[in-house]
C-alpha cells in the first residue's frame, strides 16, 4: 500500500512538474535570434563565401580536412576580403560549452558577456592579429557597414571587444540610442570598462553581480531605465577620462 501511494505521489509530482516548463515568449525568442545574428560584410563576399564553403563542407557526410585557409590563400586576399573572411568564419574550433544558452525574457536583460558569433568555430590567432594590426581600418569598415545595415552584428561586437576599441564608444552609443533595442551594445560598454579596469565600475554593485565571485558567463542584470542610464553615464565618464 505504501509503495502504491509513493507511486501515485510520484506520478502526480511528475505531472505537476512537467507543467512547470514555460515556453519563452515570441518576443524573447526573436530577441535571442537577433542577439546571435552576425553582420555579413559585402566586400568580396561571393569570392570569400565560396572559399569558406570549400573549407567547411565536403559532400554530404564529411567536413574538409581543415577549417583554415592556407597561408598562400590568406595572403592573396585583399584587406577588405580578409575583413569579410574574418567576419563570416572562425578558423579555430570552439570548445563544447556554449557560454550563453537562451533564457526566458531575454529582451529584458543586460548580459555580462556576448553570445558566441560562430558557434562551433572561433577566431584564430592569425585572425585576431589581423584585427589588432589593422585596428583603425577594421573599425572604419565596421562603422561603414553598421551605418549601412543599421545594426551591429555579434561578430562586430566580438571584434570591438577583442580590439579593446574604446574609441568606438560614442559611435556605438549613437547606434544604441536610435531604438534602444540592442542591449548587447550595453554589454560592450560593460566589457570595455571591465577590461580597462575603470575604478568606479569595478567598485559598483552591478560589477559585483556581473563579474564577481558568484557570476558565470550567463549572468545578467535587469534591463530597466535606471540600469540603462547608469551604464551610459559610467561609460561616458570612462570615455572622457580614458587615456591610451
Amino acid at each position, binding site marked *: 500500500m505504501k509503495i502504491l501511494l509513493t507511486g501515485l505521489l510520484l506520478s502526480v509530482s511528475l505531472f505537476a512538474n512537467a507543467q512547470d516548463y514555460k515556453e519563452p515568449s515570441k518576443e524573447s525568442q526573436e530577441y535571442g535570434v537577433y542577439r546571435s545574428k552576425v553582420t555579413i560584410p559585402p566586400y568580396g563576399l561571393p569570392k570569400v563565401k565560396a572559399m569558406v564553403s570549400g573549407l567547411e563542407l565536403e559532400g554530404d557526410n564529411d*567536413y574538409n580536412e581543415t577549417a583554415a585557409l592556407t597561408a598562400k590563400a590568406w595572403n592573396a586576399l585583399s584587406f577588405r576580403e580578409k575583413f569579410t573572411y574574418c567576419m563570416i568564419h572562425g578558423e579555430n574550433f570552439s570548445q563544447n*560549452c556554449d557560454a550563453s544558452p537562451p533564457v526566458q525574457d531575454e529582451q529584458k536583460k543586460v548580459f555580462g558577456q556576448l553570445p558566441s558569433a560562430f558557434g*562551433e*568555430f572561433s577566431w584564430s590567432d592569425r585572425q585576431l592579429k589581423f584585427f589588432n594590426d589593422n585596428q583603425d581600418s577594421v573599425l572604419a569598415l565596421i562603422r561603414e557597414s553598421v551605418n549601412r545595415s543599421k545594426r551591429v552584428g555579434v561578430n562586430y561586437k566580438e571584434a570591438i571587444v577583442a580590439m579593446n576599441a574604446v574609441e568606438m564608444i560614442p559611435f556605438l552609443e549613437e547606434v544604441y540610442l536610435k531604438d534602444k533595442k540592442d542591449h548587447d551594445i550595453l554589454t560592450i560598454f560593460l566589457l570595455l570598462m571591465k577590461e580597462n579596469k575603470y575604478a568606479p565600475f569595478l567598485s559598483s554593485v552591478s560589477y559585483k553581480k556581473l563579474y564577481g565571485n558568484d557570476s558565470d558567463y550567463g549572468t545578467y542584470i535587469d534591463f530597466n531605465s535606471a540600469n540603462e542610464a547608469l551604464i551610459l553615464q559610467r561609460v561616458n565618464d570612462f570615455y572622457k577620462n580614458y587615456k591610451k
Partner: protein
Amino acid sequence: MIRYLLIIASLLGSMHTTAQQPAFVTIPAARYVVGDSNSINNPIRTIVLDSFQISATEITNEQFAAFVQATGYITDAERRHDAMVFEPGLPEYKWIKDSTASWRFPNGRSRGDITEKMNHPVTTISYRDAVAFCEWAGYRLPTLDEWEVAARAGSRTRYFWGNNRDEIKRYANLWYGRDHLTADSSDGFMYTAPVGSFAPNPWGLYDVYGNVFEFCQGHAKFDKPGSKVVHARGGSWWCSKNSCNYFNSVDIGTVHPHASFSNQGFRVVR
C-alpha cells in the same frame, strides 16, 4: 520504487572489469523524467527508454591504445594537426591550436605524454574518433537522453545529490580557480585524473560532471535543420563555476565533429 530496487540489484551484480574493458552499469527499461523546467534547450519531459548498459567510467588511454594498436587507426588530431590544447595563463574560453597534440600528447608534445596516465580518460580525440572506437569494440555512444538518465541516477535535481553545487568537490575533477590565468590543482589534478578518482553517483557512474566532457549521439532540440554539429555532456577538468557552469545533469554542449580538445572524451553503451 521498484525501478530503484531493480537498479540496485543490477549494481550488486558482477561488475567485472579488465584494463581493456570498462565495467558496465545496467539501467533498466522505464519511464524517466529528463530536462529542467528552467531550461529552454533541455525542457522537462517524460521519456521511455529500453534497458541499456553504460560504462561506469570514461574510456581510458589504455583502452584507446588497444584500439589503435589493433587497427592502426589515425585520429583526427593526428591527421589534421588542429587539436586545441590548454595551458594556464589563457583568458576564459581561449585555447591554443597545437599541431603536435593528439591523444598521446593531449596538450601538445611540450606538455608531456600519457606514459604515466594510462588510467586517465583518453582526450584530444574527436567525435569521429570516439565512434570509430565504439565500432571496433562493439559498443556505441550513449544518446543524449541515456546519458542524462544514467547521470541523474533517479534524481530530479540539477545534480544527482540535489541543487547545492558546493557538494561537487566529492564527485568531480573541475577547475576551482576564479579564472584560468593561474594553474589550479586544488582538487589534486590540473588536467585529467585517473578515471574513478572521485565518488560515483548512486548508480555507480564515476566522473559524470567532471574530468572530461562526454560525447553523446543524436540531435538536440536546438540543432538547426541539417546541422552536422555533435554534442557532449557532463563537465571537464577545465570547467569552473565562473565560466560556462555546465557541469550538471541539464546542459548540453555543442562541438564540431572533427574538433579535438584536451577536455573531451567519452563513455560507452552496449
